[in-house]
């Protein structure tokens, strides 16, 4: 897993609430068996016209936001599906930090598994950062995860909250599966004590009913 410590990058503003996972990566692009290469499909409905050409007015099609590393958006970012393809596409494009007043639960959790830092800030702070991001000369920001701060173009620092375990996971990366497998004895013990109402599914279940 990619780790996250600090990031200095251009921020792009997407001032729309309820950006859903279909908008981030539409259904037609889910037919992949890999994790990579989805960056060109990110926001495809907003980014490209019917012929597949770039829409010049979409923020990520303009300089300097074409190389944005931070995305600032509004409430309930990432609502909809559980597809991890959404954070894969964001990361593949190069967006490593998303700032919004709120996130949808599954999307929020998925970010941490993919080296993306989702930052929740009050709406008025998000609005201020969005103004910065809309001005090419002020759009570059510095994110410091250990210090939990965002530094604006004028040097002003904004603090953000993050759960300690999630911060650790981003800072050091972690193999959660390996950690859980260390608890295999506890898992086996649970299985032995649990009632067996959920019996094993036969491998030929497809032959039912």
């Amino acid at each position, binding site marked *: 897993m990619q780790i996250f410590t600090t990031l200095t990058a251009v921020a792009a503003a997407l001032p729309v609430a309820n950006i859903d996972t*279909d908008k981030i990566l539409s259904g037609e692009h889910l037919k992949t068996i890999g994790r990579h290469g989805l960056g060109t499909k990110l926001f495809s409905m907003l980014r490209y016209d019917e012929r597949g050409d770039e829409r010049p007015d979409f923020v990520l099609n303009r300089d300097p936001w074409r190389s944005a590393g931070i995305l600032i958006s509004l409430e309930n970012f990432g609502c909809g599906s*559980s597809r991890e393809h959404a954070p894969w596409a964001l990361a593949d494009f190069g967006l490593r930090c998303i700032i919004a007043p709120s996130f949808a639960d599954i999307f929020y959790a998925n970010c941490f598994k993919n080296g993306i830092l989702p930052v929740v800030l009050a709406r008025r702070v998000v609005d201020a950062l969005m103004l910065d991001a809309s001005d090419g000369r002020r759009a570059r920001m510095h994110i410091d995860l250990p210090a939990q701060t965002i530094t604006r173009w004028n040097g002003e620092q904004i603090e953000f909250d993050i759960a300690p375990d999630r911060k650790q996971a981003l800072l050091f990366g972690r193999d959660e599966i390996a950690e859980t*497998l260390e608890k295999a004895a506890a898992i086996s013990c649970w299985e032995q004590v649990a009632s067996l109402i959920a019996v094993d599914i036969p491998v030929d279940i497809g032959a039912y009913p």
Partner: protein
Amino acid sequence: MTHTDYPRTLFQKIWDRHVVAPADGDNVVLYIDRHLVNEVTSPQAFEGLRIAGRTVRRPGATIAVADHNVPTTDRDRPIADSDSRAQVATLERNVAEFGVPYVPLLSRAQGIVHVIGPDLGLTLPGLTIVCGDSHTSTHGAFGALAFGIGTSEVEHVLATQTLIQRPAKNMLVKVAGKLPNGVTAKDLILAIVGRIGTAGANGHVIEYAGEAIDALDMAGRMTVCNMSIEAGARAGMIAPDEVTFAYLNGRPMVPHGAAFERAKAEWLALRSDEGASYDHQIDIDAADVEPMVTWGTSPEAVTSVRGRVPDPTALGPDARRQVERALDYMGLLPGSSLKGLPIDVVFIGSCTNSRIEDLRSAAQIVRGRQVAGAVRALVVPGSGQVKAQAEAEGLDRIFKAAGFEWREPGCSMCLGMNPDRLRPGERCASTSNRNFEGRQGPGGRTHLMSPAMAAAAALFGHIVDVRELP
């Protein structure tokens, strides 16, 4: 098992029962009883196992099926789209390699994963059930704790049969009274999503209770729990009762005979204790609910079929921009009425509304009538079992005689990963759960509604109030 002396919610009981060990912070290692796997969100998870040299810890707790990509016609021929074909082939290779139970495409049990779980009796009260799909919340209708997960978590469950989770908050949605005639579970959940908003239940598990919930059949309860995710909830759940037990009894994977009676005794304890506390409570009066139709590009953009599209000029700047954008996309005029709005396509299907009860309710409207002129109308049963049952009841003949297409089971036009898609600008009366821009195909315009309402729209070629049918 945790013993407590304070009153607990249904969610807390299932949660406590499944805690294997504490993890860091508020997190716990939570045991997962059933893991449903589809072709879209699992390839990278199996690949992860392969790279790390890991195995599936408990294949017998896992079941895989292809549903999103599958064509709904010509099942005996190879899948035409090469990417879809590759995804299904990859699933087949993975289940064979890792020994995971699999329901093949040509099996009668095949269907949308959230339909076949209950069909086969895999979904039981008190279980923890996960799937790499947000509408896993559907299974909560049986008093299970069921929620969607990302692909990294799919890999974690495959390898360990557990998840690292932090507890959710509890929300009670209490629906008093009776739903009026012509008003269904779909209308109820659309009204709830409209009331609390698509982020209204973020961080919460919703428990539905009250007279109107008790009165729902299992299909209706599944419809309600299914769309909990459209209110931002992690899961939805309903305490099991005699309706649940009657549905379960006799299904292939449900305990039989004396074992069923023993299980039932355990299941009866699966209800929130008197005095259990919720972080939020929403009260709804069922008598106020009407047939609902979405007008916008978010499930919360919904109103009664007698209602009108909002006028953005009357709103604050944020809402105004959003509504303007939605109306522009949907090709609707501010303040226009929903009734009478012409539609091009009707889709009856999806994990929200493709069960036998849904098809019966649509067929009852359609019987002896004809689909209007240019309307393209599809019925896509949720599973092979639903399809066979419908055919045994003659529902397929009713639909076909009226001019509906009768398809093979799958997700189909719910998200258009297969060839069933809207063309740009087409307007669809759909029984699915999401009306996001492009959800049913780029440029497509979705109006969510109940199966009865969608069937009625097919007959008239425009949106009608099902209560006013002759």
